[in-house]
């Protein structure tokens, strides 16, 4: 897998510095202010006439807290988390009623495949975090490469899942076999549907980050899609624990 190089320890972008501070003066104060406030990213000859971005008044002068993306995506994310909480509860409840069936089912799963999928999603999520950081610091071209790596991780997850499903069905473990496999295929299938939609979102993120200039609306969209991608990671963490690990 080819990953973009990012010398994290030395990289001023990843260490929270404004690009204009070390990029030979290519960036202006307006860009720096824009990065903090979510305004348009472009060289603005009238930048010096603008007011400074509002801060929380904290001693460190950090920008005020904000909802990543927009409120709507969080309503969806929290609603989805609640729906999955119901799935988790039903699964654990049924597991306590049929411990032998569920333990046999769990042992039939390949733990290595589940662990690899976890590592893929965690890595994909981190790539999105780094990519978004680059976009916010006006280096969206580099950010798009990190989004592309996250997309690759997601595609590997799908491939891995297909292998897992094929293996289980080949061994005679079908959704109708017993309650464990019903839940396994249903929950992981719903999660896979989320992930497939997320792949489309990541594709959009790659395309958006390749724009020469990122508008405030683009940044909001990128943040919202990043939040959705992290949701997929978050849900998988619990699914993996319950399906593969819980005895």
């Amino acid at each position, binding site marked *: 897998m080819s990953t973009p190089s990012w010398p*994290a320890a030395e990289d001023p972008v*990843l*260490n*929270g510095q*404004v690009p204009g501070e070390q990029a030979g003066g290519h960036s202006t104060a307006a860009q720096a202010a824009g*990065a*903090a406030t979510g305004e348009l990213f472009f060289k603005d000859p009238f930048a010096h006439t603008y007011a400074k971005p509002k801060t929380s008044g904290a001693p460190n002068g*950090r920008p005020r*807290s*904000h*909802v*990543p993306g927009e409120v709507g995506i*969080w309503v969806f994310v*929290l609603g989805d*988390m*609640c729906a999955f*909480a119901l799935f*988790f*509860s039903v699964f*654990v*409840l049924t*597991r*306590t*009623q049929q*411990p032998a069936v569920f333990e046999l089912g769990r042992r039939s799963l390949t*733990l290595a495949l589940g*662990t690899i999928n*976890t*590592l893929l999603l*965690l*890595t994909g*999520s*981190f790539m*999105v*975090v*780094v990519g978004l*950081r680059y976009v*916010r*610091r006006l280096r969206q071209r580099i950010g798009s490469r990190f989004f592309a790596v996250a997309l690759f991780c997601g595609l590997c997850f799908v491939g891995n899942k297909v292998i897992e499903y094929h293996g289980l069905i080949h061994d005679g473990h079908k959704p109708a076999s017993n309650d464990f496999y019903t839940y396994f295929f249903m929950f992981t299938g719903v999660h896979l549907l989320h992930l497939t939609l997320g792949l489309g979102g990541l594709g959009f993120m790659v395309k958006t980050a390749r724009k020469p200039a990122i508008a405030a609306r683009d940044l909001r969209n990128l*943040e919202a899609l*990043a*939040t959705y991608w*992290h*949701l997929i*990671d*978050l849900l998988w*963490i*619990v699914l*993996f*624990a*319950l399906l*593969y*690990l*819980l*005895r």
Partner: protein
Amino acid sequence: MTSIRPAAIVWVALMTSALLNAWLGEGHGPAKVAAVAVIVIAFVKVRLVGHYFMEVRGAPLPLRVIFDAYIGVVSCALIGIYLIGT
């Protein structure tokens, strides 16, 4: 703007934790202790993903409270269901 380092540390910790979770699930320790540990570790990871990847830690207080309340309620419910049922 904060450094990427905390998120990088969280990423390494989560990767390590995934391997630790796998080890717990392979039959080490009493079943109930291992099960509770698996659920607790999973939701600690959820919180780390939420706060450091989804940027909940920089979000307004209501969102932080709702997110953390979700983690507390759901993890306690799952542990309760498991312990009462077994």
